[in-house]
């Protein structure tokens, strides 16, 4: 325990060292939000570097523009130190804290949860309703698992994930020096949400991001936007499906031309395409600019979203065959860990980025108001 906190303070000290050099330079001002808020400080503290770590969207322009980057003897590597601190924040902010250990074994825990969910559902259905249900064609998903279970399960999982994530985000907000008045400032929230959804910090201030490598590019902006859109479309598809069933009393399966299926297919395609894009970029990207453990944690989310969309497509294609039951359970088994592990995985990144950006908008507004 003692040793661990020591290690952490070495990491933060190193970040303070690097950012102090940055603050004596400030050439990167304009690339992204990090450099704007550095310009508002004379001294860099430990809580500042925790704030900068998630304000950083891993754009990497600063690294390649910097005359002090490795191999210069000042040895700056801002993208890497930020990713190390991000991993540290992820673990430290986990609620309850011991679940932060999940990050160390994310893949194996995810696979275990999937397998257990799969076995659990098969067993329950087999025991209660007969195994025949899973090996013969069924008219609807809901004959395999009654809609009420899927919906209640989904709502509980979703609410749980969102609640824990927001709670963790608020703890982070106070950790980086945020206060209650600004936490409740609606205008800042609107601006922040807009900036994040429009991927404002994926543009390098107008010269693109040096991702995956040395030269300015908008590829990561493109694929990440697709990923977010795909996720939102699939979420909408699910909400509309519930609306059809509960309010309009139209029961599934829905025809191909219904909004449920169209949005679902579109969302799934976007997720699949963007996953391939992001994984390809990551594969060719400069690995010396990221913490080694963070690479796997990043990949976890991309792979999981891709698998969810693939299993969703299989389900759609084979929904009139005897495989439907098994495929439905497979699809759900892959989806469950995404939400169950959301607060303790890469999934949580958006909430910390959100609160860091909220702080940025509050600081910027304050600065502009107080300048003559």
């Amino acid at each position: 325990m003692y040793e661990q906190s020591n290690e952490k303070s070495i990491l933060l000290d190193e970040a303070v060292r690097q950012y102090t050099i940055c603050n004596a330079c400030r050439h990167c001002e304009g690339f992204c939000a990090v450099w704007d808020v550095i310009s508002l400080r004379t001294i860099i503290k430990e809580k500042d570097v925790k704030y900068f770590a998630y304000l950083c969207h891993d754009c990497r322009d600063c690294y390649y523009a910097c005359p002090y980057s490795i191999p210069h003897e000042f040895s700056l590597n801002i993208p890497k130190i930020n990713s190390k601190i991000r991993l540290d924040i992820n673990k430290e902010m986990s609620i309850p804290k011991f679940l932060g250990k999940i990050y160390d074994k994310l893949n194996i825990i995810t696979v275990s949860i999937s397998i257990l969910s799969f076995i659990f559902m098969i067993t329950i259905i087999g025991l209660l309703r007969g195994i025949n249900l899973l090996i013969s064609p069924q008219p609807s998903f809901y004959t395999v698992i009654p809609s009420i279970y899927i919906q209640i399960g989904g709502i509980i999982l979703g609410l749980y994930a969102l609640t824990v994530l927001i709670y963790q985000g608020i703890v982070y907000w106070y950790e980086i020096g945020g206060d209650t008045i600004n936490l409740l400032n609606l205008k800042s929230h609107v601006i922040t949400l807009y900036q994040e959804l429009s991927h404002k910090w994926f543009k390098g201030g107008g010269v693109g991001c040096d991702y995956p490598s040395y030269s300015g590019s908008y590829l990561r902006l493109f694929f990440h936007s697709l990923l977010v859109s795909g996720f939102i479309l699939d979420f909408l598809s699910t909400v509309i499906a519930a609306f059809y069933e509960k309010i309009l009393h139209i029961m599934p399966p829905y025809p191909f031309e219904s909004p449920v299926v169209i949005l679902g297919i579109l969302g799934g395609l976007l997720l699949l395409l963007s996953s391939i894009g992001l994984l390809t970029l990551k594969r060719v990207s400069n690995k010396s600019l990221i913490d080694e453990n963070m690479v796997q944690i990043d990949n976890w989310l991309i792979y999981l979203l891709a698998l969810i969309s693939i299993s969703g497509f299989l389900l759609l294609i084979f929904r009139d065959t005897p495989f439907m039951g098994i495929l439905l359970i497979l699809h759900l088994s892959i989806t469950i860990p995404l939400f169950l592990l959301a607060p303790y995985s890469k999934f949580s990144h958006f909430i910390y980025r959100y609160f860091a950006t909220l702080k940025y908008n509050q600081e910027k507004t304050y600065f502009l108001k107080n300048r003559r």
Partner: protein
Amino acid sequence: MGKGMDKYDIIVVGGGNAALTAAITAAEKGKRVILLERAPKEFRGGNSKFTRSIRYVHDTPDQYTTKEYTEENFLKDIIEITGGQTNIELSKYIVKRSAELPKWMEKHKVKLKRAVRGAFHYSGTNAFILGGGGQLIKTYYEYAEKIGVKVVHNATVKDFIAKDEKIDGVVAEINGKREIINGEAIIVASGGFEANLEWLKQYLGDAVDNIIVRGVKYNDGIPLRALYKLGAAPPDTVKNPKDAHWTAVDARAPKFNGGFVTRIDLIPIGIVVNKKGERIYDEGEDLWIKRYVLWGRLILEQPDQIAYVIIDSSMLGDSLIPMYSPIKANSIKDLSHALGVNEDNLINTISRFNQSIPKNCHYNLSELDDCGTINLYPPKSHWAKPLLHPPFYAWPLRPGITFTYMGVKIGLDTRVIKTNGKAFDNVFAAGELTVGNIFGRGYLGGTGLVIGSITGITAGEVASEYV
């Protein structure tokens, strides 16, 4: 590189901003261009990496600046800061063409920042580069290679192959192998000789051990020396070879390549004393941006080439904190011991300074305020504030050289001029090698890139016409 005897239209010696603007200009005119950069790829770009802005003519405030800056004002500033040690025709030419530079840069993918933000006060004369010089260099290299410039790293040009008023090629050591490269015209943009300590020693003597070379360690002036050997003249505007771009940097900075982050901007806020505990010059003479280049030269003349800037705790938040931590003490006496400065003198200097400050002045760092000392020599004309509140903080200062001014004399077409008054037919110079033509002494922030770009573009244009 393959075998030797490659033939190019234009050989560019150097790999910073001036070399790149020259190479890009010539390549855009359809010439076959090779660029020989001394440094390995990670350190390419020379001192241009350490730049951040361009000072340029704009008759009205534009998207990058807050005020107008006319040709007359720019020229006036140059004449004033150099005390007339400038080639006025060349200055006029650079100043005039500076107006087109922002457009040229943006056309070549360099992005300039809108308006002025952050903590720097440039009075609307300068436009700032997004990402600074590092981003500029990176962008230009990418552009140059895209349009076909052959870029070679680790290529040290050792000598020129000359015949009469012409140079036929260069002798280069590329990755340790000797190569001869032939070209129709040569553009030399290889920087000064500030990293060549032996050469500097001829002018500085033993003081060379106490200076810090802010610039890259690759600028050791080998091509410049080869040009002198062929009869190239130094600019007659440079009267003293010691004159160079000198600033005050932290004494703990690395000997080479520390760039600008080691600089100390606290001088206008506090006081500066030498080893004897005496103040050396007016710390508040003018806006810092007009005076920062003065201080390195001043410290060069002090005993052991060292000085200390001292502030008290009430001034700590008034400026950026430098990258190196201050030396801290709870009394002036303790501070003198920590610094190794004469105790009695320092106490005396500070108490006389404190007593000479008018009681009811209006301390304001963002303008030339009325807090000037009375009956004190040397005076502190602005921003004088008594050092009363412990702890006291000090940073040790050394003279930091960025680049030397003694380069080559050029004509308006950037052709290198010989000591016999004639110009080489096909040898052009650009960048820091030519800055001495404009600044025989003194300097104005943001002119290095402008001189480099305009001489570079001109050399590219004229050389292309020649071949």
